[in-house]
């Protein structure tokens, strides 16, 4: 027999925070309501089957006016791997100068996602 479930969740793809109502049948999302844009539908489907998150953090940097360089994942990573990725970034050291978008940690933990600089940082 089909098991139909309704799940309420908040879209986190943008600060609007739309409240989504998703219907699941046998572990498959069959409908999403309440989203103001298509990203909401994709979010609900991912969140209920394979939740993904962006990662933002900092890495040490040498030769700049600041000690730390802010970085961001180029795309989302599996939610369950986020803490491990953050830990890996603590071991990395960048070197100034850096331009926004420069790859700082390629293919983090072999997950196929690059970690890039989120700002320029000049050498001093």
């Amino acid at each position, binding site marked *: 027999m089909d098991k139909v479930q309704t799940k309420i969740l908040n879209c986190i793809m943008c600060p609007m*925070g739309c409240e989504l109502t998703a219907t699941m049948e046998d572990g498959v999302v069959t409908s999403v309501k309440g989203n103001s844009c298509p990203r909401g539908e994709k979010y609900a489907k991912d969140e209920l089957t394979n939740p993904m998150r962006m990662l933002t953090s900092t890495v040490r940097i040498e030769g700049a006016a600041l000690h730390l360089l802010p970085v961001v994942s180029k795309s989302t990573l599996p939610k369950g791997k986020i*803490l491990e990725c953050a830990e890996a970034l603590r071991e990395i050291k960048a070197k100034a100068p850096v331009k926004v978008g420069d790859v700082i940690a390629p293919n983090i933990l072999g997950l196929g996602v690059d970690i890039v600089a989120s700002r320029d940082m000049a050498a001093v």
Partner: protein
Amino acid sequence: MNKIYDIIIIGGGPGGLSAAKSAAENGAKHILVLERDREVGGILQQCVHNGFGLHHFKEELTGPGYAQKCYDLVKDMDEVEISVDTMVLNIENKSDDKKIVTCVSPRNGLQKIEGRTVILTMGCRERTRGAIRIPGYRPAGVYTAGAAQRMVNMEGYLPGHKIVILGSGDIGLIMARRMSLEGCKVEAVLEICPFSNGLTRNIVQCLNDYDIPLYLSHTIVGIKGRDRVEGITVSNVDDSMRPIAGTEFDIECDTVLLSVGLIPENELSRELGVAIHPRTNGPVVDQHRETSIDGVFAAGNVVHVHDLVDFVSDEAEIAGKFAAIKATGNAKKATLDINVNAGDGINTCVPQHIRLTSGEDESVRLFMRAKSPQRKVTLHIKDGDGEVMKKPLAIVKPSEMIAVDIPAAKVKNIKSDITVSIEGAK
């Protein structure tokens, strides 16, 4: 003192940079941005998380990424000069088109600079423990969430390892995740209100993702430890936010982060003499973001605390545009001055008044904050003659600013003061 600037902008955060860009695009030739830090970008430089820019730049950026974009847009403009490491001490209003800004910098020492107009974009700062009075000793380990954010994201050290956060505003929530990512244990987030004051997405991705408990209607009634924080005593509070005796429990921690709200930074504005609104704690402005003093404009968090930097940029672009129009002598004289009042269910509304000219052809955007969270409400804008417009809203929360545009065709017909209110579903 030789050069006269069209516009002097006080503060080089996203507000100041966006105002500069828009001013240049609207005809101002000589624009000076004064920034007290060693680089522009303001508080965004320490907000390394993402979620910025979706409205304004149509792409998702981190805080430093957003600042970078704002800076990249003005850095090569001939009209825009940026002076960092420059602290503004005082602004004087000599006449409608003559303002004197006194500032100091290591490079130029004490300087007096003349501008035809001034735009205030100083932003806001955090409320501190003193402002909310927690009883107990004054041990090390108590920080504002923003100070901790600066430590972790810019200076490179951790304020502690077992953390409790007081206040569920966005900075508190973001810091809960940030500390978790750095390997700290966040024991709890406490919120004195019965609802969270942060964006819903931040509750989901900053607390729920890391299994951090959020205690609503709870506050800290005592901090333990003499030299270093050793723990806190927490209590449930009643409807009037008073601790309920007998509900106390202890949480062990070495660090307490306070995220208890932001207040616009208006020392310079007050000295200058601009009228400050008692609820927003920022200058009273019209729809062009002109303050009570002719030729002095204000935008962004200095006017009212925003939750989205995108709206700060939008608002600063308005200020930049109209400061440019004023500085170049093209401002139209207002024929009608209409107050915008916050009615039922609305805590604050910006702008506080609308100055209409004959042949008015601009729409007006109102930014509002609701008093309490509600679902399925209608926002009404009424003048003395009745309804100007209404808009159904699926959900309102004090933490999420409401933005509504009154179309130009409707603005034109407003004849008397307007009141904005929220009514629940019947």
